[in-house]
């Protein structure tokens, strides 16, 4: 018995081969690096993971960063999407302006905020001084306690537009009949929002949260430019820690073990979110 090869395969094969060479093969290579050292097979890298306090700190902070930024971006994105949707004039102009931060290279976004946050010459403290505040203690990204909040704010600035845009599209796709029906029934704005709009928006919301959280968990660029993970390890994240381990300290084995564990965790998280999306 011969099974026919699907005729479409020849069209898809080149892309699949290239992707396999550029992703499956590297993944296998990664696993191999993570379980070997100079003498051969070892599980020492994985064992080290569980005793490494800095890794735990970085993982905790990555999660904190991701959850805080996700919550803020979702809240402001939804609020703005609803607000702009209800404006009678100038919607297009507002939308285009709100889009801008998202387009910038993250490196440039981080450069901008370095100019803003600089405690001595930055425009933020400059404006606060103008308003009569004492700014000596406001060190933003270079303060131990304020650094995390400051980098999260940059993320919120750059990526709230992403939430805003996706949720706006979701709002525009809601058919007018259920809204009409709610109005006829005498439901007020907030009730309509809670009982009609949000449930209809749920698939878009979940998709936006999924896409955004995948990006947040791998956060690297902005923090690399803004704080390099400092001061101390106040803004250290998993990506930065892996980067340093591999490319500053040349410990590829341990870095590979960390990234493999990170990959497994994010994949599981993404899968459960995807399942949520499919069932809703």
């Amino acid at each position, binding site marked *: 018995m011969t099974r026919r090869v699907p*005729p479409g395969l*020849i069209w898809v094969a080149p892309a699949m081969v290239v992707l396999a060479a550029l992703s499956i093969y*590297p*993944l296998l290579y990664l696993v191999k690096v993570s379980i070997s050292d100079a003498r051969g097979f070892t599980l020492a890298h994985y064992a080290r993971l569980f005793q490494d306090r800095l890794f735990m700190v970085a993982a905790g902070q990555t999660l904190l960063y991701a959850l805080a930024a996700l919550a803020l971006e979702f809240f402001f994105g939804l609020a703005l999407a609803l*607000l702009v949707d209800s404006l009678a004039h100038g919607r297009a102009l507002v939308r285009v302006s709100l889009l801008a931060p998202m387009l910038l*290279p993250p490196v440039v976004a981080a450069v901008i905020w370095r100019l803003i946050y600089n405690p001595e010459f930055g425009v933020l403290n400059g404006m606060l001084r103008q308003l009569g505040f004492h700014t000596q203690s406001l060190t933003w990204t270079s303060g131990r306690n304020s650094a995390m909040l400051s980098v999260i704010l940059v993320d919120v600035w750059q990526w709230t537009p992403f939430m805003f845009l996706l949720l706006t599209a979701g709002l525009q796709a809601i058919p007018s009949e259920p809204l009409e029906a709610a109005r006829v029934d005498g439901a007020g704005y907030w009730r309509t929002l809670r009982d009609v709009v949000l449930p209809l928006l749920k698939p878009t919301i979940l*998709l936006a949260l999924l896409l955004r959280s995948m990006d947040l*968990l*791998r956060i690297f660029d902005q923090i690399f430019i803004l704080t390099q993970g400092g001061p101390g390890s106040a803004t250290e994240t998993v*990506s930065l820690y892996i980067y340093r381990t591999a490319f500053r300290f040349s410990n590829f084995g341990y870095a590979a073990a960390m990234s493999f564990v990170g990959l497994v965790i994010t994949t599981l998280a993404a899968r459960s979110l995807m399942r949520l999306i499919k069932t809703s």
Partner: protein
Amino acid sequence: MKTILKYTAALLAMAFALAPIYWLITISLKTEIDQFASPPLWFHFTPTLRHYEGIFAHDAFGRYFLNSLIVSTCSTLIALALGLPAAYGLARFHWPGDWANGISFWILSNRMLPPIVTIIPMFLMLREVRLLNTLAGLILVDVALNLPFVVWMMRGFVEDLPREIEEAAMLDGESRLGVLLRIVLPLVRPGLAATAVFCLIVAWNEFLFALILSQTESAMTLPVGIASHVTQYEIQWGAMSAAGVVAILPVLIFASAAQRYFVRGLSLGAIK
């Protein structure tokens, strides 16, 4: 009253989104004295193009710009050349069972790989074949980054087209390749252009791969060049911000060309 509140809130949001970008532009146009003025100067300063002249007189900067251009253009073209046939194959052929969706999801899952995971083996592999610090190495990883996106987006765009035209052409004796090149390609051109723009932006903005794979001046891209100057010459605000503005411009031009497809691209084709 309520209307006034609404418009005030919208204006505040716009100001918060745009003011930092405006501030970058003013810094790039200010003399050192005006840059550090307290209280900050928002409007009243004498603009100068000195910082722009400065960075373009600096050989390395032109090099970074050119490198970024080469890497993003080449990786986009390769991703399109590989991705369009694949998308056509997935959209238009008869596949047994759920193969078409299975393959599509596998392709998309490559896009979900965190860069920090792929970069370690990529670095080691490219080092072995001596492609570190070359544009070719960087183009290769950017293809891996963008190819899944191209397949996923173009599959949707091809599926949006009516099948009948293609079927009629095949009855007239047109080959599959002929159908793709002479019928599908012209019809799908707006979608293809939008997809290309997205790939260009992703490759242009990409930082982590470039940071690790191109550490020599001759192979650095613009974001890496800017980053290396941030840490080296913290105090050269003028040069830094002028470089930043130059790095933003192409993205804005690309983006305005694909505005209509933004949501579709950002949601990986899920929202049309």
